[in-house]
């Protein structure tokens, strides 16, 4: 392990605190504050991975996760960006995309086969003859993709999501972002500032150059950070990468948690009144031969390794840069002990004279107008060839680290995501926005400025503009801030160089996808001439780095290569998430939330087996026998009770309530009579049946309605939608959760009922379809309906949820002498199926209309004035012979029941099984199926195909419905 600086004031590590981790099966140690990448580097690791296509060795490059070079598998999670992930005690780290090891990769030979894999390789090759494609595909699949994950891998960690609302959101916690946040906060506005690194400071954070009056930039950065953190109006989200920016000032990101947070990662969606983009710059990669060999790294990477992590990245450095930051870094790294063979600057002139002087003082050779052309060394750089930009003079230098960067380029992702048009500015060499969307402002280096005071001033200006947009200050203040900005140095001239003078066979424009200059040329020569097409065909920028490396070089190169054709310089579109994010983070906390009925605990105490059904948790069985034989037989021969509380329940009242009923239900609801229950159905505008239930008239303009469990949530919306133009005076209240339902069914049901009431509940006094409002034990008010869903004598008790426990126990005690038993949802399902009472959604699907399922008798055609939903479509469907019909069937030769959803076939699919069970009541397998009308005639043989049945078929025969108690005497007496 190399020695690390442990006294620098710019350090982000605590060298006294060791962190032990496992890399490739061996134990290593890093220190607190290390990223995985910095800890590995400190332990001498230089090759972090192999590249996607050619398996070239790759190492540290940007230190900000801009490419896949340093992605590794961490604790079983593939593609973790190790430059952005803090090291934790006990982590297990593995390399990816290697056969063998990154050091000795058995697929390394692929690099020599690049001639066989030109741009568009996959589109062009191995299609002729067609039969070789499946074989070739198998081999390609084996080597394709980065990282591996097992299908049953379970994502560890805790995830969360927050949706904060704020006045101003600032993207970027550098000097511009911080001054912007402070300026807006000073005006009394609420501000959120998000920064992708784990600390604030940005461009000032790792620099020792003077800010002013003897204060160093990093000190100024720390000072600003303290002010921001101390400001009560500012919420600081550190280690929070922006992943999306949208119109209407919506910004999304994800935050990595610290040990003190309750989450590992969380999704952040910020709604603001104003957005400030202060994302600064990244470095534009310098393109030359082997420009991604381990040991080649960008200026910020080299300097931050030393300043933030205390690691001198090499002993002998060579610099090939295009910006003053490169000169400043060379000086600082020299002072920290790096020998520097030379600093090549692609700019012929325009360097800061003080920096030139400082280099000269240290006897560092400065070559103006020079550039690196080739990095040598098989796995790590050991020598570099330099040349004048025109390629005339060349010279080699030995080195173990090559610091290379063509210049700076703005981080425009947030701007392009918000659909802002960018223009290439010839002076700065930047892509700039001439027009910003409403209430969106940019600040800092993204504007092309580089002077520290200008950067801060631009932040203040943006903060004040945002305050003005929020109505917190006036135009005069904006003018004053603009004037202050004008007095400071403006944008600086940028480097225009795109590539060194090389042929480009091994000069990489995109690291993730192994796209070289040569392959881009091939792409353009094949006719794909604009950046968007070049990107797709050559795959430059399609990798996990989300165009971090090729983003701006690609359009510049494409334009340059076709200068004569006048191709405009336009960057490719950036899309969310612009930083790779876990799907788990988007999923958030992932609670499994379900509603429980008022007597949930009683049901569980009675050994109910729960299942999640829609939004509810319900008892499906009361024993391990999932055929529910005992539950079914008890209802058929004795008496059972069921918790039906999940039914949708509504009160509808008001002078126009009946009009609403007439609009929604297919039946004539004016025929409702007090004391009677009316069963009816609702259709959609296509006549497809969406729900059924009962309606009871409680009084004048006052109705009680039930719907199926699944439709309860949408029913109020449905009523109001279809009456939205009418201005009718009615109110509808969803009382599903405030009311519970107990269903008491079986031949002994009346005997049990009689025990809890003195009222006459005989068949004459309380007949089938009757309704009574009753009071039990003088305190429990109940709505009681006489129904027969399961095909037996049956009562439904609707009571307030708070009375459910009492009524349940009352009925249970009353039923004890008859041996009353619980029954669950599955038993009910079989019971009602035997009676051919349908459940919508089970005996119907999206396209099934009222007539298909045999409910046409509910439809009243003489109420055109009501404009009943679905009536027009039903009239059209009435004579359509192509529709499915619901039929009953039984299995041939006493065969077993087919599975629900099995297909009815002959030479093609002719229908499907809705519900089928082996019936204990009937001693044979029966069911209902939706089939083409030709097959609907009684006696028709149905050929049934089940999944994975091969050539085996089972057969059923269409029979009349219902199967059980066809006359309904049991239900009605």
């Amino acid at each position: 392990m190399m020695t690390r600086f442990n006294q620098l004031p710019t350090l982000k590590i605590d060298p006294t605190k060791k962190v032990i981790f496992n890399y490739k099966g061996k134990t290593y140690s890093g220190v607190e504050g290390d990223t995985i990448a910095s800890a590995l580097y400190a332990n001498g690791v230089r090759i972090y991975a192999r590249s996607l296509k050619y398996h070239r060795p790759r190492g540290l490059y940007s230190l900000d996760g801009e490419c896949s070079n340093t992605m590794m598998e961490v604790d079983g999670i593939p593609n973790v960006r190790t430059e952005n992930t803090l090291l934790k005690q006990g982590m297990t780290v593995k390399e990816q995309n290697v056969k063998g090891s990154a050091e000795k990769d058995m697929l390394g030979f692929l690099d020599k086969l690049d001639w066989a894999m030109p741009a568009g390789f996959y589109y062009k090759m191995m299609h002729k003859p067609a039969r070789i494609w499946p074989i070739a595909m198998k081999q390609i699949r084996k080597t394709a993709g980065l990282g591996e994950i097992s299908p049953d891998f379970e994502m560890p960690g805790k995830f969360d999501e927050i949706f904060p609302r704020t006045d101003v959101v600032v993207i970027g916690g550098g000097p511009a972002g911080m001054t912007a946040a402070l300026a807006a906060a000073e005006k009394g506005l609420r501000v959120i500032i998000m920064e992708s690194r784990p600390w604030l400071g940005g461009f000032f954070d790792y620099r020792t150059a003077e800010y002013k009056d003897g204060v160093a930039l990093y000190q100024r950065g720390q000072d600003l950070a303290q002010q921001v953190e101390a400001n009560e109006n500012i919420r600081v989200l550190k280690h929070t990468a922006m992943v999306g920016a949208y119109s209407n000032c919506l910004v999304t990101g994800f935050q990595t948690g610290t040990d003190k947070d309750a989450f590992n990662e969380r999704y952040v969606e910020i709604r603001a009144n104003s957005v400030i983009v202060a994302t600064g710059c990244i470095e534009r990669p310098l393109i030359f031969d082997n420009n991604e060999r381990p040991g080649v790294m960008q200026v910020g990477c080299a300097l931050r390794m030393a300043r933030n992590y205390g690691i001198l990245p090499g002993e002998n450095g060579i610099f090939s840069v295009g910006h003053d930051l490169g000169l400043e870094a060379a000086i600082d790294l020299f002072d920290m002990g790096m020998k520097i063979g030379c600093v090549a600057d692609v700019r012929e002139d325009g360097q800061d004279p003080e920096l030139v002087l400082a280099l000269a003082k240290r006897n560092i050779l400065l070559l103006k107008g020079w550039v690196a052309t080739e990095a040598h060394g098989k796995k790590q750089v050991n020598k570099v060839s330099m040349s004048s930009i025109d390629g005339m003079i060349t010279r080699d230098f030995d080195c173990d680290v090559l610091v290379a960067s063509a210049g700076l380029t703005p981080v425009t992702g947030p701007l392009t995501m918000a659909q802002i048009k960018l223009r290439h500015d010839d002076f700065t060499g930047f892509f700039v926005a001439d027009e910003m969307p409403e209430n969106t402002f940019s600040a800092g280096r993204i504007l092309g400025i580089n002077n520290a005071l200008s950067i801060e001033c631009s932040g203040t200006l943006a903060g004040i503009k945002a305050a003005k947009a929020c109505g917190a200050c006036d135009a005069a203040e904006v003018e004053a801030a603009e004037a202050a900005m004008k007095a400071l140095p403006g944008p600086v001239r940028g480097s225009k160089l795109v590539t060194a003078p090389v042929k480009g066979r091994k000069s990489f424009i995109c690291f993730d996808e192994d796209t070289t200059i040569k392959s881009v040329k091939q792409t353009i020569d094949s006719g794909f001439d604009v950046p968007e097409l070049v990107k797709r065909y050559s795959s430059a920028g399609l990798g996990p780095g989300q165009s971090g490396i090729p983003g701006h070089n690609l359009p510049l190169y494409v334009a340059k290569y076709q200068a004569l054709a006048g191709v405009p310089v336009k960057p490719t579109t950036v899309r969310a998430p612009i930083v790779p994010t876990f799907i788990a983070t988007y999923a958030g906390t992932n609670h499994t939330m379900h509603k429980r009925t008022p007597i949930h605990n009683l049901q569980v105490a009675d050994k109910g087996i729960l299942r999640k059904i829609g939004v509810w948790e319900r008892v499906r069985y009361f024993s391990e026998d999932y055929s529910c034989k005992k539950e079914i037989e008890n209802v058929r021969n004795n008496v059972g009770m069921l918790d039906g509380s999940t039914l949708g329940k509504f009160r509808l009242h008001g002078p126009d309530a009946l009009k609403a009923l007439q609009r929604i239900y297919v039946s004539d609801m004016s025929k409702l009579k007090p004391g009677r229950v009316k069963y009816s159905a609702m259709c959609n505008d296509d006549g497809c049946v969406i729900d059924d239930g009962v309606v009871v008239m409680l009084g004048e303009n006052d109705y009680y309605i039930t719907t199926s469990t699944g439709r309860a949530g949408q029913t109020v919306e449905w009523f109001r939608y279809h009456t939205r133009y009418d201005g009718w005076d009615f109110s509808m209240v969803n009382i599903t959760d405030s009311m519970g339902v107990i269903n008491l069914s079986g031949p002994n049901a009346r005997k049990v009922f009689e025990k809890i009431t003195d009222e006459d509940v005989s068949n004459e006094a309380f007949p089938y379809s009757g309704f009574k409002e009753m009071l039990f034990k003088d305190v429990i008010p109940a709505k009681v309906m006489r129904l027969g869903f399961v095909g037996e004598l049956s009562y439904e008790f609707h009571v307030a949820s708070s009375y459910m426990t009492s009524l349940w126990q009352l009925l249970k005690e009353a039923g004890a002498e008859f041996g009353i038993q619980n029954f669950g949802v599955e038993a009910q399902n079989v019971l009602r199926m035997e009676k051919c009472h349908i459940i919508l959604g089970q005996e119907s699907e999206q396209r099934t209309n009222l007539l298909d399922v045999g409910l046409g008798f509910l439809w009243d055609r003489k109420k055109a004035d009501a404009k009943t939903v679905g009536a027009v479509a039903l009239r059209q469907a009435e004579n359509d012979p192509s529709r499915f019909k619901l039929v009953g069937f039984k299995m041939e030769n006493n065969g077993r029941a087919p599975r629900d959803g099995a297909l009815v076939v002959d030479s093609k699919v002719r229908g499907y099984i809705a519900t089928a069970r082996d019936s204990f009541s009937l001693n044979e397998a029966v069911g209902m199926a939706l089939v083409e009308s030709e097959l609907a005639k009684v006696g028709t043989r149905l050929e049934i195909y089940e999944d994975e049945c091969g050539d085996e078929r089972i057969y059923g025969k269409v029979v009349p419905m219902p199967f059980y108690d066809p006359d309904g005497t049991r239900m009605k007496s």
Partner: protein
Amino acid sequence: MALTITCPICGKRNGYEFRYGGEDKGPRPEEAGLTPEAWCDYVHMNKCVAGVQKEWWFHKDGCGSWFTIHRDTTTNLEVKGPEADK
């Protein structure tokens, strides 16, 4: 979803709270003399304008009202009412 919607009862709220209810096509046509084609057009045909349209929204996670707003379909932003109608 970047869209915000102004509910007449609850004010400007996050678009997630609402359900889209389609273009404003006017009241249901009278059934008398209605051809199948005219009915299908009413139910299924949309203008799909690129620009400002009047449309229905339901405040499902709020007050439960149906109401109309004007929205520019090219920017997916709500725009002010009457002048947008012109």
